[in-house]
C-alpha cells in the first residue's frame, strides 16, 4: 500500500463530525479531510511525547510538536494552537501544505519500529482550525509601541510572518503588495485541494488581528514603490518578493497559445470559482519534476483533461517532488514519463503537441540526449521548470546564484534592508521556510533597530 493510499484509508472514514468527501466533490475538496475529534484523540495518543524530539529539529520553524500534541490529547486544542502559532503564525497553511513526509513526520520515532509516523500535519491542522473557528481575541499581545516603522515588500508567507512578528515586538508595519489580495503563494500558488474554503484569506485576517499592520495593495516594487524611497521613509525594510519570473524552455513557439507557466495556471485556477469554469486542455503535457509540476498535473486531470502526461528529464529518484506527491500524480491518472526532454513544440495553426528526446546519463554522469525521439500530442502545455528572481527592481542589493545575498541576520548588502523567503537562499523553497525567514528577520530587525 502506498503512503497515499494509507493516508486516504485512515482519514476517509470520518463519521463523527469529520469533513469527509461529500457527494458534491468537484475534485477540489480537501486532499486530506480534517480530523474529527475522535481521530485527533486517537492520533494524538500515538505521540510518545519525546524529549528533545527529532520532529522539532526537522521543522524549519521549530514548532514544539510534542507539546502541542500533548495539549490536544489532554483536551486543550486551543493551547495546542498557541504553541504552534507562537513558532509559526502560518501553522494553518503549513499543516495543509507542508511536505510533512520529508520534514517532521519523517523524523518521527514511530517510524523506527512501526514504520508509521504520527500524522503531525493533520493534528496541527486540527488544533489551528479549532482555535480559528472560535472567533477569540488574537492569541498574541503586542509589546509596547516602539515608534519604529518597518516596510515589508510582499504579502506572502515571508512578508506576513515578518510583519506579524515585528508588530508583536511593538513596531508598526506597512506591507506593500503588488497583487489585489494578500497571501502570496498561499493564495495563488498552492494546489486548490490543499487550501480549501478560502483558507489563505482567513489566515491573513487572523494574522492581522495582532494589530499594527497595514497592507497597501496594488503596490509593485519598481513600478509603484522603490526600494530607495522606502529606505528613506522607514526605519527598516524587509524584502519578501519571492521569485517573480519563470524559466523558459528555450524552444520556438513558447509564446504559442496553450503554452503556459504551471504557476500561472495554478494562480488562475485558485482564483476561479466554481473550479469547473476553469478551461483545461483535453491532452495536457506538464514539464518538470517538482511539486509545482505535480500540482499542475493533478489539477489539470481533476479539471477533466482526458490525458495528462508529466515529462521529466531524469528518473523518479531525481524528482524534487516528494514520494507522496509522485504517488498522488499516479493515483490521479497522470502518466509520468521519465528520462525525456522537450525538443520542439508542435503547432499547426493550433497547438498539436510536443517532441521529446530520450535522455540518459553518459559515462561522466552528465545528462545527454540519446537521439531517440517521440511525440506526445497536446492542446495545452504547462511548464514547471522552476522560477527565478526578477532582478530589475532589486538594485542596491547583491544578488548571487539567482538569490538575494543575506548575512546570518537576514540583512542584505544594503544596510537596513533585510530579506527572506524564496528570494533568498535559506532552506527549501517551502512556505514553512519562508515563515521561518520572516520570523527570524523580524527578530533581527528588532535587534537592528534597538542597536541603531
Amino acid at each position: 500500500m502506498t503512503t497515499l493510499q494509507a493516508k486516504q484509508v485512515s482519514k476517509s472514514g470520518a463519521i463523527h463530525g469529520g469533513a469527509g468527501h461529500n457527494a458534491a466533490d468537484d475534485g477540489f475538496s480537501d486532499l486530506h479531510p480534517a480530523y474529527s475529534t475522535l481521530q485527533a484523540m486517537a492520533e494524538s495518543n500515538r505521540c510518545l511525547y519525546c524529549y528533545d524530539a527529532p520532529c522539532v529539529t526537522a521543522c524549519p520553524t521549530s514548532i514544539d510538536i510534542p507539546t502541542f500534541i500533548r495539549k490536544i490529547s489532554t483536551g486543550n486544542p486551543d493551547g495546542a494552537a498557541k504553541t504552534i502559532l507562537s513558532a509559526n503564525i502560518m501553522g494553518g497553511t503549513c499543516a495543509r501544505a507542508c511536505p510533512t513526509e520529508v520534514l517532521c513526520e519523517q523524523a518521527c520515532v514511530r517510524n523506527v519500529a512501526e514504520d508509521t509516523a504520527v500524522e503531525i500535519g493533520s493534528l496541527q491542522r486540527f488544533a489551528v482550525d479549532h482555535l480559528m473557528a472560535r472567533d477569540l481575541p488574537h492569541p498574541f499581545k503586542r509589546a509596547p509601541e516602539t515608534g519604529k516603522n518597518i516596510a515589508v515588500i510582499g504579502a506572502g508567507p515571508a512578508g506576513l510572518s515578518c510583519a506579524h512578528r515585528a508588530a508583536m515586538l511593538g513596531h508598526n508595519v506597512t506591507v506593500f503588495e503588488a497583487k489585489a489580495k494578500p497571501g502570496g503563494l498561499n493564495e495563488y500558488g498552492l494546489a486548490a485541494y490543499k487550501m480549501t474554503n478560502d483558507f489563505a484569506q482567513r489566515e491573513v485576517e487572523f494574522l492581522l488581528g495582532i494589530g499594527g499592520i497595514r497592507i497597501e495593495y496594488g503596490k509593485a516594487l519598481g513600478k509603484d514603490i522603490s526600494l530607495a524611497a522606502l529606505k528613506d521613509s522607514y526605519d527598516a525594510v524587509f524584502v519578501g518578493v519571492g521569485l517573480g519570473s519563470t524559466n523558459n524552455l528555450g524552444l520556438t513557439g513558447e509564446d504559442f497559445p496553450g503554452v503556459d507557466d504551471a504557476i500561472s495556471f495554478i494562480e488562475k485556477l485558485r482564483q476561479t470559482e466554481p473550479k469547473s469554469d476553469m478551461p483545461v486542455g483535453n491532452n495536457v503535457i506538464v514539464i518538470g519534476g517538482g511539486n509545482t509540476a505535480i500540482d499542475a498535473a493533478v489539477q489539470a486531470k481533476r479539471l477533466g483533461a482526458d490525458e495528462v502526461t508529466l515529462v521529466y528529464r531524469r528518473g523518479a529518484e531525481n524528482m524534487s517532488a516528494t514520494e507522496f506527491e509522485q504517488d498522488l500524480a499516479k493515483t490521479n491518472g497522470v502518466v509520468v514519463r521519465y528520462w525525456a526532454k522537450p525538443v520542439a513544440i508542435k503547432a499547426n495553426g493550433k497547438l498539436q503537441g510536443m517532441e521529446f528526446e530520450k535522455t540518459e546519463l553518459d559515462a561522466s554522469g552528465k545528462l545527454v540526449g540519446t537521439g531517440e525521439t517521440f511525440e506526445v500530442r497536446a492542446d495545452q502545455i504547462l511548464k514547471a521548470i522552476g522560477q527565478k528572481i526578477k532582478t530589475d527592481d532589486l538594485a542596491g542589493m547583491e544578488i548571487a546564484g539567482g538569490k538575494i545575498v543575506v548575512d546570518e541576520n537576514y540583512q542584505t548588502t544594503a544596510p537596513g534592508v533585510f530579506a527572506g523567503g524564496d528570494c533568498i537562499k535559506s532552506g527549501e523553497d517551502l512556505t514553512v521556510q519562508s515563515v521561518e525567514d520572516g520570523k527570524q528577520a523580524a527578530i533581527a530587525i528588532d535587534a537592528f533597530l534597538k542597536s541603531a
Partner: protein
Amino acid sequence: MADLSCKIAGIDSLNPFWLASAPPTDKKYNVVRAFEAGWGGVVWKTLGIDPPVINVSSRYGAHHDQNRRLLGINNIELISDRPLAVNLQEIRECRAEYPDHVIIGSMMAPIEERAWKDLAQQIAESGVHGIELNLGCPHGMCERGMGSAIGQVPEMVEQVTRWVKESVDIPVFTKLTPNITNILWSAEAAYKGGADAVSLINTVNSIISVDIDQMVPEPMVDGKGTHGGYCGSAVKPIALNMVAEIARSPETKNLHISGIGGITTWKDAVEFMALGSNAVQVCTAAMIYGFRVVDDLIDGMSQWMDDKGYTSVEQFTRAAVPQVADWNELNMNFDTKAVINPDNCIECGRCHIACEDTSHQAITMTNKPEGGRLFEVVDEECVGCNLCYHICPVPDCITMEPVKTDKPPMTWPEHPLNPMRMAAE
C-alpha cells in the same frame, strides 16, 4: 490444554473465573449468557431483605486515560432492586439448567442476628453452592448501617460471619472492604467467625471525577454527586497487596481467598492466584467488554500453564507467597543497573528526561556523528530504580541487569549503618 478446574472453600469449579456480585449477575438472563460464554461461576448480585432497594438514575463514573480507555469505574448502584423471591426462583432455575456451574448467593442485612440468619437460610434453600457476605459496599448501603459500615468493624465482621455459619451448612465467603487501615484485622475476624473463605477486595471508596462545567462530582444525579465504589484495573495493585497480606499472615493463611480487584487479563488472574487466591472474580472487564473476555482468560492461562509445565492451577496457586517479604527482609547488598540496547532504541529520549529531571541523572544523551542520538547509562549514578525500564515505550529495549557482587546478603536490621542496630548493641 491444561486443566483449569479448581476447588475453593470445598466447592469444585470448572475454572477459576467467576463473575463477581455486581450488575452483570443481577438476573437469570445475564447469568445464562455468562455460563454460555464459559464463566465457571457467578456470585449473584447481593440480595437483601424485601422491600427491594430503589436505585438512582446515573450510576457509574469513569476514570479514562487520554485515549478514552477505561482505567476504572466507580458506581453508586445499590444491591439487587428486584424482589427476593424473583431472584431466588431464578437462582433455582439456573442451578437446574447449569448443574456444573457454581452459583454463590451474595447477601447483606442490617446488623441483627435474625435478619442475617433468616436471609441466609432462604438463599441456601435456593440451592446455591455457598454464601458470600457483602460487608463492603462503600456507598449508599453503609448509610443504612450495612455494607462497609459492618465490614469496617472487625467485631461485626466476626459476628455476622458466625451468625451465617450457624444458620447454614454450605461454605461461607466473607467479602472484605479495602476501606480500612489493615486488611488483616477484618480477615482475622472473618476467620474467627468461621468463614471458609474471604473474597476481596470490594470496591474502593472514591470520587472518580468532577464535571468542571457544572462543578458536580460524577456520576451526577440531578445536580449532586456522591462517593462511590471504585473498581477496574486501577485498583488491582491495592487488591494484590491485601490478598498477599492475608495469604502470608500466620493467623489467616489457612483461609481460602477468592481474589477480586481489577482482573482484566489472564495474567492478572495468574498474579492473584500466585499471591494466594484459590480462584478469582471479575466484574469491570466484563462490564467494559462483555462476557466474551472469559475466552482469553481461559485460553491465556491455559497456554501459559502449558508453556510452564503446570498441569493444575493448584501448582502455581500461592507460588509467589513465600517471596512476599517485609522491607526489612530485603537484601541491601543487591544491586541492579539499567542497560539500554541501542539496537532497539527508537531515540524518544523519555528515559533521559525522566532520569535527568526526577531520578539520578544516570542516562546521558549524546548526538551520534552519523546522526541520531545515543542514550547511555552511567553505571556509577544508576541506583537500579527501574524508572527508565518502566517508561520506555519499547519492550525489551531497557533491561535491568543484576550486578555481580561478592557481598553476602544483608538486611537493614543487620546493616552497620542502621542506628537501631547500633543502639541495640
